[in-house]
């Protein structure tokens, strides 16, 4: 346990060191691209020759939509009580709360779309639009996009495509305008809400597949901490959120993932490679319960 804690602390310190370089780069005068260039150059890893990192980010966070599909494929029924009520959006008064809950509502919208709850989805979409405007990223949900969404309300596949694309545009806009402190909160909110919904479903249904999906969040959570860490000193809110996630990561560290490599197979004609390697996840019921309880606590601070 102590080793795990030290490992997690080391991860944070490493991330913060990288972050301090990145933030120094951002604070200088100059154009956006210069800043991006400086940030990237600051992250050159001298121990590995010319290795650099994508966006100073390095890591991806699973899409809430992707997780919603995993839930749907587990043959579980729709449960409205899992959602953060859309009428609570008025309670979110500062950018920190708005960005986190933009991510939360995005995950809710993904869940609603997958289960084809169209009338409810409209309400959530309206809230997302308002929060986006308040955060200055209305370009992601511009008039053309809104028209497309309205025209595709009955078409689940198109709707998911349009909304996911809008979140990608918002991500791009925030990165290009040095507002990634907001972008990472949207990702954090989406990840937390998706993981919260999975923990609730796993507890109520005892569905093993969902439980496995929760355990598989071990590395995405590490990734999330790493992309949030540059903003640790930005405010007390960021520090508290990151500390809570690090505390959660201690529990995920107890989950074992045994990996076995197998040669992939390639279908050149269809430009498809099948990855045949296997991962086996070992997680106890107690670990699942502890993780679920901690996620409830973190989520409560975000949505209430």
């Amino acid at each position, binding site marked *: 346990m102590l080793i795990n804690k030290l490992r997690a602390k080391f991860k944070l310190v490493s991330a913060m060191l990288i972050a301090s370089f990145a933030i120094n780069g951002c604070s200088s005068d100059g154009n956006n*691209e210069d800043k991006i260039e400086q940030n990237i150059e600051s992250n050159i890893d001298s121990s590995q020759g010319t290795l*650099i990192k*994508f966006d100073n980010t390095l890591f991806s966070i699973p*899409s809430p939509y992707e997780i919603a*599909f995993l839930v749907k494929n587990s043959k579980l029924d729709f449960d409205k009580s899992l959602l953060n009520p859309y009428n609570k959006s008025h309670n979110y008064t500062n950018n920190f709360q708005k960005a986190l809950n933009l991510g939360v509502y995005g995950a809710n919208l993904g869940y609603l779309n997958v289960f084809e709850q169209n009338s409810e989805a409209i309400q959530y979409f309206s809230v997302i639009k308002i929060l986006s405007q308040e955060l200055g990223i209305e370009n992601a949900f511009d008039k053309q996009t809104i028209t497309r969404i309205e025209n595709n309300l009955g078409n689940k596949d198109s709707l998911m495509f349009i909304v*996911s694309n809008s979140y990608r545009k918002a991500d791009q806009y925030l990165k290009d305008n040095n507002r990634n402190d907001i972008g990472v909160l949207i990702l954090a909110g989406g990840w937390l809400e998706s993981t919260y919904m999975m923990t609730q479903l796993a507890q109520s249904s005892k569905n093993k597949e969902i439980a496995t999906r929760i355990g598989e969040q071990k*590395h995405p959570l590490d990734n999330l901490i790493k992309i949030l860490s540059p903003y640790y000193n930005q405010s007390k809110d960021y520090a508290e959120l990151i500390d809570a996630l690090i505390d959660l990561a201690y529990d995920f560290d107890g989950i074992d993932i045994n990996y076995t490599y197998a040669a992939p197979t390639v279908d050149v004609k269809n430009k498809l*490679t099948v990855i045949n*390697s296997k991962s086996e996840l070992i997680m106890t019921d107690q670990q699942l319960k502890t993780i679920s309880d901690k996620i409830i606590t973190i989520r409560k601070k975000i949505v209430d």
Partner: protein
Amino acid sequence: MKKITLLFTAFVALMFNLNTFAQVDVTTSICTKYIKTPYISDGQQYKALLNGDEIAEFHSTFYGGTTYRVVAATGQKEGNLIFSLYDKERNLLFTNRDYQNSTYWDFKFTSTVDCIIEAELDANSQSKSGFAIMLIGFKQ
């Protein structure tokens, strides 16, 4: 004289900036045309500035039972970027170098795997530097 020099420098910087943004926009358009239904964007856009033989590295978890599409490009035309997929043990799972630097490739994961994607400019292309853009989509 100082003012003129300053204005000229600012003008050159502005032109460079606009040119860079234009390049990124074109590269993004190349990538987005391959993320179409049934593929859905993961909601993020990954970008790195590459010079010479630099390699950009990207970490991601791919879920078992899901098919993903990885799209990566640089500059104003396709085929200038090499991307390779490794597992955490650094076993090479795929490289588009073997397939004429294909701009996109699909990956079906039978089990959840943590992976590393590396991207680099093709030494044989004319590009000596540029922004690499990468998008990931998953199949509905």
